[in-house]
């Protein structure tokens, strides 16, 4: 149990006729602790009470967390299965009729079986998400491979975490999002944070981050915008979107040149140093400045501070990862820690700010097209054998690897994939190049969507299955530290809604695969099977029992046995997970963004989040408080740029790229580069900025380049009334 200086022994306010259910927020990777207030007469969730006893967040929550409970009994909840018979209404909210679960299941099974009979097993696909428990993520992978027998399964982490995963695997041989617990962060001497709008996307990290400065430590932030965290940074590296790789190489070059390399560490625990040293030589401050647009003095200062700091942590997020060189960016920033040896000890290390609640756990256990439980590879025959044995199928029955999330839409467009089971995701808002993606969904022969609200993606479905919110089921998630925690059930499922694991078991039974699923009668049953399935994998959860999680405030994986306490700090023994035990320092040549500004599209468009909304906004846009705070998207424009285009604050302008266009209200601010514009992505239909974004994929992680493309603004002609 880590009890640090922020922890205070405080009682909760306990109203009569109420129970407090200890749990965590439904939204981001911080997984802030919270108590849900449940009325003991109605057995309904009625409010929230801080959870002061949670060591990571000590009662703190952002406005999403404070209002998260309002999702459960919201008027928009789907309470019964819905079927739409008229396919011409696809892409609208119209034409759905209520149906019984039995009718919905029958309809699904009939259509799934027909498609597979006519077009083969792989004509079906599963698209899932990681805002759900490990148990559900695990079972979704098993459902796709065993119940449907399709190779096409992938998930929304391809739009979120996959570049971090790829970079960590390459650098360390293992992908745990943070090499150290969050309770270390305020004790470090220098934080280098790249591409993370932390104050808005992971707000409850901020009290620890500010504390570094209060103690006299330094904060360095790399971001094209002067975000709330960049505003107070000691050095703000205001780079052009999509140029991180040059910045990271430039800083590495200075670290090496100025003698900050830890020779002993580099020699004994890493490979690739000499080659990388050669490569980064060309990235002088001047050359780096030319590419990134950051003043050379700032680059020099940042390298000096990081180099001198006795302890330092490098952190990053989607800003550097959602690029078509996202994996390279991750490895390049990770190089800083490997070259200086600031890793594998307390208060130093590398971390990504995991976006989704279970972005870490959800990617480890087989929802990804090439992965099986416990981070096993579907391309590794030994791994396949282990999992087949556990599931009771033969290796021949195990489908081959599939394709990544965005590529699934390409296969839908080509009619290779004809059916889709979508759950826990809203790609009609969150995928790039939405005109294409929405059209691919519209042209599917058959689509099932499981959600608790009628999302923009559900508008394309033939059948909608009402699932539960996070508060009506239990299970584990893995937070951004790599700490496995427990989500508890506070209320019975509303209406006829069911948890996704139960839906999958019942569907599997009707698909004739009951013998692999029917034993799963409770969330606990799924949990026990899940832990067993991870045993022996990299991400070994087998020792992370619910009891242990409760007793020691979570369990950091790997946790290989009942006796093992878990692993808060990675690599304390300086052993990395590559076969030779060494980490890899990577020589990474610079590549510009896939689409650079040109005469027709002279601006750089970048996208991101606001503090009031989560992902596609399907949940948060329905919460009154959050909606009031941010009802619609906007485009941030620097005053100089606004002047050039003759546009004013709050005026509506047309923003367009090679792929699409949308109209946004202008928000003028000096807190952005003058060559860059920014739009938050949480909004649907014609407000979606992803109509404009570029689907250029990272060659390794298959992450689309949400963070940089070329755009143009046009003043709207004044309408005559």
């Amino acid at each position, binding site marked *: 149990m880590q009890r640090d200086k922020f922890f205070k022994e405080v009682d909760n306010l306990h109203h009569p006729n109420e129970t407090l259910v200890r749990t965590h927020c439904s939204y981001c990777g911080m997984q802030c602790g919270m108590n849900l207030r449940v009325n003991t007469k109605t057995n309904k969730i009625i409010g929230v009470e801080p959870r002061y006893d949670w060591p990571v967040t000590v*009662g703190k929550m952002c*406005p999403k967390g*404070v209002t998260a409970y309002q999702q459960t009994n919201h008027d928009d909840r789907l309470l019964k299965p819905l079927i739409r018979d008229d396919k011409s209404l696809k892409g609208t909210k119209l034409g759905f009729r209520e149906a019984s679960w039995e009718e919905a299941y029958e309809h699904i099974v009939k259509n799934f079986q027909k498609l597979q009979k006519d077009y083969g097993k792989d004509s079906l696909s599963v698209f899932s998400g990681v805002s759900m428990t490990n148990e559900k993520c695990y079972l979704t992978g098993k459902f796709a491979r065993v119940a449907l027998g399709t190779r096409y399964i992938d998930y929304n982490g391809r739009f979120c975490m996959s570049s971090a995963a790829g970079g960590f695997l390459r650098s360390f041989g293992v992908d745990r999002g943070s090499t150290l617990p969050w309770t270390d962060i305020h004790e470090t001497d220098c934080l280098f944070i790249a591409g993370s709008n932390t*104050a808005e996307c992971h*707000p409850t990290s*901020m*009290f620890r981050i500010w504390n570094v400065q209060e103690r006299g430590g*330094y904060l360095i932030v790399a971001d094209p915008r002067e975000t709330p965290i960049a505003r107070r940074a000691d050095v703000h590296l205001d780079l052009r979107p999509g140029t991180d790789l040059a910045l990271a190489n430039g800083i590495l070059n200075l670290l090496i040149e100025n003698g900050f390399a830890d020779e002993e560490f580099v020699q004994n625990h890493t490979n690739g140093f000499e080659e990388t040293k050669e490569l980064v030589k060309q990235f002088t401050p001047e050359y780096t400045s030319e590419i990134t647009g950051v003043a050379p003095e700032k680059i020099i200062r940042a390298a000096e501070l990081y180099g001198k700091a006795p302890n330092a942590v490098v952190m990053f997020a989607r800003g550097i990862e959602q690029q078509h060189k996202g994996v390279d960016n991750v490895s390049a920033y990770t190089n800083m820690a490997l070259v200086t040896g600031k890793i594998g000890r307390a208060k130093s290390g590398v971390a990504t700010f995991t976006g989704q609640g279970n972005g870490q756990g959800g990617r480890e256990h087989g929802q990804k097209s090439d992965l099986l439980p416990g981070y096993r590879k579907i391309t590794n025959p030994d791994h396949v054998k282990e999992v087949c044995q556990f599931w009771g199928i033969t290796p021949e029955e195990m489908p081959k690897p599939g394709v990544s999330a965005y590529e699934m839409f390409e296969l839908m467009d080509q009619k290779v994939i004809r059916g889709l089971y979508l759950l826990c995701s809203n790609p009609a808002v969150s995928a790039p190049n939405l005109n294409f993606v929405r059209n691919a969904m519209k042209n599917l022969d058959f689509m099932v969507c499981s959600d608790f609200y009628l999302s923009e993606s559900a508008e394309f479905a033939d059948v909608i299955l009402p699932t539960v919110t996070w508060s009506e089921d239990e299970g584990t998630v893995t937070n951004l530290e790599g700490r496995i925690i427990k989500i508890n059930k506070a209320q019975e499922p509303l209406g006829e809604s069911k948890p996704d694991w139960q839906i999958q078991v019942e569907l599997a039974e009707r698909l004739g695969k009951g013998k692999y699923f029917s034993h799963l009668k409770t969330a606990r049953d799924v949990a026990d099977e899940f832990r067993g399935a991870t045993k022996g994998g990299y991400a070994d959860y087998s020792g992370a029992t619910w009891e242990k999680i409760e007793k020691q405030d979570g369990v950091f994986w790997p946790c290989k046995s009942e006796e093992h306490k878990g692993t808060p700090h990675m690599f304390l023994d300086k052993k990395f997970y590559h076969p030779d035990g060494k980490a890899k320092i990577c020589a990474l040549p610079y590549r510009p963004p896939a689409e650079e500004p040109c005469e027709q599209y002279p601006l750089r468009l970048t996208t991101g989040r606001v503090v009031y909304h989560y992902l596609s906004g399907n949940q948060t846009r329905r919460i009154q408080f959050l909606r009031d705070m941010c009802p619609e998207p906007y485009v941030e424009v620097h005053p100089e740029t606004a002047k050039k285009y003759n546009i004013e604050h709050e005026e509506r302008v047309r923003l367009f790229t090679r792929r699409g266009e949308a109209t946004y209200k202008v928000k003028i*601010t000096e807190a952005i580069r003058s060559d860059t514009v920014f739009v938050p992505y949480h909004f649907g239909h014609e407000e979606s900025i992803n109509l404009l974004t570029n689907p250029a994929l990272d060659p390794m992680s298959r992450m689309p380049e949400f963070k940089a493309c070329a755009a143009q603004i046009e003043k709207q002609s004044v309408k005559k009334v």
Partner: protein
Amino acid sequence: MKKRLYLELENCIGCRSCLAACTQCGGHEERNRNYVYDVNPLVNRQTMPLMCLHCVNPACARSCPAQAIQIHETGAVLSALVEKCIGCQNCTIACPYGIPKFDTEQNLMYKCDLCIDRTKDGIPPMCASVCPSNTLQWLTDEEIEAKQKQFNLDNGKWVTSLPYLESETNVRVNLPGILQGVTKLF
């Protein structure tokens, strides 16, 4: 041990979680009683909360012709008593910070009561509990004094609770500039 609301304005990230949290207090009828302002919205992202300072001799209560604004033994300046408030809105004008809000439908003033149902039993107020940046904190006088020593401003102006517009307040405020006095580690 008596604790006070303490504000470190320079920490604010504008998340407005304090507003969301204020709607969640018992007896708050889901209406928040605090404010967060964009300091210079066209220029940068600086924000700051504006909270009731719980003045020792509060102008709102002084101005009230109906004795509707009571002062709790903890020092909290409470929201208007429903049965006494006549809706004259004197208090909304008298308060130099514009804290009291007015509900025209109910003809009733409402304001921050320092989450009295929590703080009377030593439980931190909602806003200070959730504030992710530690702009709002709930501290003992000793802790506040330690802060004062830590942030030894070179201009000699420790800004907390100086006699401002309304003399002594129960809430302590540290204006932007807290990091000025910090000695860097290296």
